């Protein structure tokens, strides 16, 4: 009885605080998307109301699609993200398997060496990375970005994946060995399918910073053909400072794919974090 009367106000309080913070978190996003569908008069006249038939206008989207080469930027971002993700997962899983499966001299030293990159950001090596890319003629290519993001994503991927690979049963692998499977077959046929859920977690963690990065596209690949959508949006927004319709539409176009992906994968992502994958 006493606990019931005490916990009701507490529950209401908890919901009130959480709802308030949810509103703070979502308000800017909703505001931008809502206003991107309005005419200029609607944006300035009543910014806080959803678009009505009177203020509905797609002029912003028309400007963005007419002016910016956004489809092309999207393709670039997609190529860079997917390719980097592929290499991070493949190389990361291979290295994680070697570190967690075999005992050899220098094993823990190797693990430590790879873990260094979790804490030290790759950005600090930018000066020499640019020199390297200039020397190898990779400036303004997507290859440069893919290489950098692969190196950036590997340390965390190796770290998380080796934690999971330790949990794969030894009996299974040894059964495979008795049946005459090679170590490569054991890795690709037995182990990889079993750690697929943790691969998905690593994929989500690797993907977000790559898609959102501004620094390396700005420095390594600023040319028109290789712009990513983040850099393209940044330049576009800088050019159209006074065209609010276009800015809001561009922002919405940049938000929506990420948001849709997030809604699809949020369960995976949150389960990944809360299962203690990142320690």
């Amino acid at each position: 009885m006493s606990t019931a009367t005490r916990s009701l106000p507490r529950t209401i309080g908890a919901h009130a605080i959480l709802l308030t913070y949810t509103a703070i978190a979502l308000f800017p996003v909703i505001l931008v998307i809502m206003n991107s569908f309005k005419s200029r008069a609607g944006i300035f006249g009543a910014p806080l109301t959803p678009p009505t038939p009177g203020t509905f206008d797609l002029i912003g989207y028309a400007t963005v699609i007419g002016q910016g080469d956004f489809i092309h930027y999207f393709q670039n971002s997609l190529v860079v993200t997917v390719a980097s993700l592929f290499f991070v997962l493949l190389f990361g899983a291979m290295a994680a398997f070697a570190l967690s499966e075999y005992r050899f001299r220098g094993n823990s030293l190797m693990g430590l060496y790879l873990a260094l990159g979790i804490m030290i950001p790759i950005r600090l090596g930018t000066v020499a990375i640019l020199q390297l890319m200039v020397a190898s003629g990779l400036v303004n290519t997507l290859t440069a970005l893919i290489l950098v993001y692969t190196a950036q994503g590997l340390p965390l991927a190796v770290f998380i994946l080796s934690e999971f690979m330790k949990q794969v049963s030894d009996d299974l692998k040894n059964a495979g060995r008795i049946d005459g499977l090679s170590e490569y077959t054991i890795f690709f046929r037995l182990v990889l399918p079993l750690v697929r859920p943790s691969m998905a977690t690593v994929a989500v963690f690797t993907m977000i910073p790559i898609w959102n990065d501004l620094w390396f596209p700005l420095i390594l690949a600023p040319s028109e053909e290789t712009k990513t959508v983040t850099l393209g949006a940044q330049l576009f927004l800088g050019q159209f400072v006074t065209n609010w319709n276009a800015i809001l539409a561009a922002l919405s176009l940049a938000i929506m794919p990420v948001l849709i992906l997030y809604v699809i994968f949020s369960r995976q992502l949150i389960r990944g974090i809360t299962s203690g994958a990142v320690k």
Partner: protein
Amino acid sequence: MAAAPKRPFRWHISVFLAPALLVYTAIMILPLAGTLQLSLFRNINQSQVFVGLENFRMLFGDPNWSVNFWNALRNNVWFFVIHMLVQNPIGVLLAALLSSPRLRFSAFYRTAIFVPTILSFVIVGFAWKLILSPLWGVAPHMMDLVGLKSLFTPWLGKAQYALTALSLISVWQFVGIPMMLIYAALLSIPEEVIEAAECDGITGMAQFWKIKLPLILPSIGIISILTFVGNFNAFDLIYTAQGALAGPNYSTDILGTFLYRAFFGFQLQVGDPNMGAAIATMMFLIILGGVCVYLFLVQTRLRRYQF
């Protein structure tokens, strides 16, 4: 088929390790070392000449550089302090509320509060710039609703407020990370511990302070070091919202933007890779220092509870 004979060199280990090691070493470790090395050289008459710590002496002592450097460092420390004082307590509070048993809609709250974290700085910076802009009037209008209109000023345009405003925007974006990690830590506290506390009459707030908080201290340590590394490496948000000059009047300049300007040049100044490398080296030492403090002082003193 390279059928491995008994116990000689096990080639498959190298094959598994090689690609990751190669890419990681070539693109990350060697450039990092190269940058550190470059900071000891200077370009004189088209050739790199070893000058020892001369670049650092210039960075700390020559007014052309040192004024900006100390300013950026000071701003960066403030940026970090705001994150620690605002982002992490809010994260802990939200996580504590979310983890209370039988809370409805907690999956919805979790998902929604994490949304800003997945957006890029470009979107976040611009969206807030629009919202805080006096031209659009969303912020003054909303403050008017609660009777605080007189407090509104264009925060991002005033030197004394801009850095704090940007720090808070960054807090808004990243509060999801401490929330999630603390939430995970709170969920991993076993039932028996909580039940034992309840039997002893420790409930509610007292239970949080006396039982749960000590148990999640290791997670708070991890969050602090993640925040530290992220903050001293930040660049995108300032660049998007205020440009490379980190205006107004360098008041939002942090080490990342300073590095960018030194490396690439801006307006009349020509870019200087060696000074850029010197600044990157300083950032490296600061981050390394923070990580060492964490590993050797904080982590070893925090007791890890094994359940």
